[in-house]
């Protein structure tokens, strides 16, 4: 997996440099105009925000039940990436909404629960950094709550009619909008995999350093 990190980062960087050209070539959406172009970065960031919660939740289950150090490292990595992609989603969304809806924010179920998920990731990261002994299990429990949030966030726009578009929008996109969108999605996904791998490696090495210091203290 480590071997794939460098090509993935290089390829995603190249694709993200090409992306503005493709986005510029895409036609303007008839009702929203130019501001709709935020969608090409907002959608991949939002999906990877939810993927982070799922990865963090599954890794936390593995850590809680099988005590795998590697699972804990993956949970730490995905929580931090959840913070990054959550910030991208929660900043690009209101910038689009202000122009398209006339407001920066509405307290509808999707936006509110997305903010709650972001706060869960923030709490997880703070707990792991400053929580001390035992915080790993508490944080893993918190990650499960984060994962349970994901289906709710996804289907909320279909259950309650709000200002946010429904999930049926993306599958029915015309090709000229779909090409730049899926291109950006592929670039973001490769970046996500590479960063997840790098951050998990960092967490494993930090755990190894702590173990070495403990050995030194005992010797």
């Amino acid at each position: 997996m480590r071997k794939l990190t460098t090509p993935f980062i290089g390829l995603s960087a190249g694709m993200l440099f090409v992306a503005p050209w493709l986005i510029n070539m895409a036609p303007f959406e008839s009702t929203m105009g130019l501001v709709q172009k935020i969608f090409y970065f907002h959608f991949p960031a939002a999906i990877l925000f939810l993927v982070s919660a799922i990865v963090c939740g599954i890794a936390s289950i593995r850590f809680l039940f099988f005590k795998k150090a590697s699972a804990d490292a993956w949970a730490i990595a995905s929580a931090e990436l959840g913070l990054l992609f959550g910030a991208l989603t929660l900043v690009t969304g209101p910038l689009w909404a202000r122009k398209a809806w006339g407001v920066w924010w509405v307290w509808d179920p999707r936006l509110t629960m997305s903010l709650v998920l972001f706060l869960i990731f923030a709490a997880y990261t703070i707990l792991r950094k400053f929580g001390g002994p035992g915080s790993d299990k508490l944080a893993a429990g918190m990650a499960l709550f984060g994962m349970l949030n994901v289906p709710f966030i996804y289907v909320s726009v279909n259950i309650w009619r709000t200002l946010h578009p429904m999930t049926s929008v993306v599958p029915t996109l015309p090709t000229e909008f779909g090409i730049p969108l899926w291109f950006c999605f592929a670039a973001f996904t490769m970046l996500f995999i590479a960063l997840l791998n790098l951050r998990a490696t960092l967490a494993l090495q930090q755990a190894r350093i702590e173990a070495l210091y403990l050995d030194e203290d005992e010797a």
Partner: protein
Amino acid sequence: MRHWLRVCVLILALGAAAPALALQPQPPKEFVPVDEVPPGEQIPAINMVAAAYGFVWVAVLGYVWSIARRLKHVESELSDLESRRK
């Protein structure tokens, strides 16, 4: 008699207030699309798009830089510790 006097005073007061009420701007009767609000209240779309893409680039590059810096630091610390143990 006093009752009728009060009613007359109220009618006169309302009549005096009528010009002031007529000067008040009328509230919008229905939804006004963002593009139709006065120019002073509009934000150009290009500013929003530039801010969104700018934020994404800064955040992603900042995070990549942060990961690279932390990895470099941890790897040097790890090699120091391992060489000390030998």
